């Protein structure tokens, strides 16, 4: 493996409150993120993408897949309301342990994975969420970005997971478009600059996305 892979995990909230415009906006945003990344020769060479959704359960929408092979299914919102972010992290850890290649004396490992989480609420499985945070931290992610979408998202809880929390005032097409554009720029930066001094640097977020300090 002379070309290291850059694993990118995206965790998306599909709880009841995402129904309607918000989930539509996420679908549109994900599609345009994917097309943008496919136009990037660096990303094409290294990025492998996986999407996990979470509502009353966590589901792997698709496992780590080379960028050019990703076929994005329509993401739907099931009936009930809960937000099992803890379960999503649990599934994520399981997948990271299974799929991310670690360096060994005769094989180059993957780049440290990137993790993007988008939620419009707060974890319904708080205890599990907190337990998983400790485990996530042992996994050496290159970067973790959490996005608190809309007024009800709890930024403080996300801060327990990562210092990089951005917030969207609204959950409409325009703000998700900005957010996913930024995610793709971050992934693109990651894929072309992995290896230089500060691997975790992100491009500045667009003006509509506020970085929560």
């Amino acid at each position, binding site marked *: *493996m*002379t*070309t*290291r892979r850059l694993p990118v995990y995206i965790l998306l909230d599909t709880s009841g409150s995402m129904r309607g415009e918000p989930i539509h906006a996420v679908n549109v945003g994900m599609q345009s993120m994917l*097309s943008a990344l*496919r*136009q990037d*020769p*660096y990303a*094409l*060479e290294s990025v492998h993408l996986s999407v996990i959704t979470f509502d009353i359960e966590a589901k792997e929408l698709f496992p780590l897949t080379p960028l*050019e092979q990703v076929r994005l299914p329509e993401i739907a919102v099931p009936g009930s309301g809960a937000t099992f972010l803890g379960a999503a992290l649990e599934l994520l850890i399981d997948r990271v342990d299974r799929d991310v290649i*670690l*360096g*060994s*004396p*005769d*094989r*180059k*490992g*993957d*780049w*440290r994975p990137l993790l993007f989480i988008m939620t419009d609420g707060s974890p319904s499985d708080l205890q599990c969420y907190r337990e998983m945070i400790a485990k996530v931290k042992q996994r*050496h992610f290159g970067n973790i970005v959490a996005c608190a979408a809309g007024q009800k998202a709890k930024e403080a809880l996300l801060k327990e997971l990562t210092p990089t929390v951005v917030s969207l005032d609204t959950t409409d097409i325009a703000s998700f478009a900005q957010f996913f554009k930024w995610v793709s720029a971050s992934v693109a*930066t990651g894929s*072309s*600059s*992995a*290896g*230089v*001094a500060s*691997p975790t640097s992100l*491009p*500045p977020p667009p003006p509509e996305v506020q970085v929560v300090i």
Partner: protein
Amino acid sequence: MANIIKLQTVEGQPIEIVDEIIGSGGMKDVYFSPDKSYVVGFFREEQDAQTKDRLLMITGRYRQSLFENAGGDYWKNLFCWPSAVVEFNGRIGVVAPTYQRHFFFEFGSRNDDFLGIKGREKEGKWFASANNQNRFLDPRERGDWRKYLKICILIARAVKRMHAAGLAHSDLSYKNVLVDPTDGRACIIDIDGLVVPGKYPPDVVGTPDFIAPEVVMTCHLGKEDPKRKLPSIATDRHALAVLIYMYLFYRHPLRGDKVHDADPQIDETLSMGEKALFVEHPSDTSNRIRAKNIKPSELPWKDTAKIPYTVSGPYLTPLFDRAFMQGLHKPSERPTADEWENALVKTVDLIQPCQNPNCSQAWYVFDNTTAPRCPFCETPYRGSLPVLNLYSARREGQFTPDNHRLMVYTNQSLFPWHVNRNIFPNERLAPELRKRVGYFVWHNEAWWLVNENLPELTEISGETKHPIPIGMAAPLMDGGTLLFSPQEGGRLAVIQMVEGH
């Protein structure tokens, strides 16, 4: 329709931009002029006085020294050089010519452009990767090996020019060089990061893949630390060698399979820095690209046994040796841009068209030491091939070898720089010396040199001299000798016939 904003350069020239961002990079937002002939890139963040000063030098003095000399126009195709600085709403912008149209994809990717890259810039990374070449690019965008040689010549020449002016690019990489393999063109962009050694320190360390080992090894140190190595002309030379290697072989010279650390970040720093090792090092094979780790889409390029760097021929091979072995950790040993340019230009005389009409590379360096065949598609060379070994007289009547050969093929041209040792095909070449003076043909079962403009062409056999007037042809025979010109620096060619199978 967006508004048009009228501005003035710092020097008072009028400038107009359409108020609509056409592209954003790491630092700037870029706008078109109404006629799209130039762009203005505004830095999003406030720049310090030193940056402004440097931009003024780049658009002023340095620009003049490159472009306002005789032959300055030649460089306009090779550099996208900023022409002026503007200030607007407290932000600094640079005015630069729009990239030329051949640097935008005409067809883009395969399958009717499934990636949607038509109309986008031909960033070098698309081409310097076997996987991108094989899987994604439309074959009409890919170009052949001869075009890549030409691209490398142009890049080496442009870098030579900057270095001759005492400037270092400091971030030479496929990100900052646009290439057009369909026609063998290249253009250096992102000149705003330019470094003047000793005057303006660089603000970037460079792009991964191209950062010199000494910079990688010391980039954790503070900028003021005397042990810290910053981008310079010597590090540009490393980046140039990597670029040339990548355009000719679609693989990276240092990215092999040797693992130095389980942590990818530490491993990266070691394998590009302190422990950097050429993947094709003849005696230390520990960093070879292992066959089992190669994806099918990366073949044959990543198979260094099948396409070793030595297929680039006798002039380039020793330069790669110096760049990636002797000079890898010893910057003073690295070949200069000028040496690269010379070796690349001479290599053009060694290439042969591949006889396989479907060969993706179409051209290769003819190697007559083994059974000659195309290293890319393995098609053997069939028929006889004249090789002209060139000599010139350092003293009256005493011809010594020039270490320069010319491989003949049908319609191969003979140029003034083959005829006279003192002529070199570069940007300074006078227009009348750019025209061919003869050409080669296979006709009636024999090879001929048709004399178009060699007033004193003479066939020499023993004591007899037989003039070949303009309009006539000289036969090429094994062991035969042709004197192209008896003038000072004039060359003699000794013909050697190589038989293919």
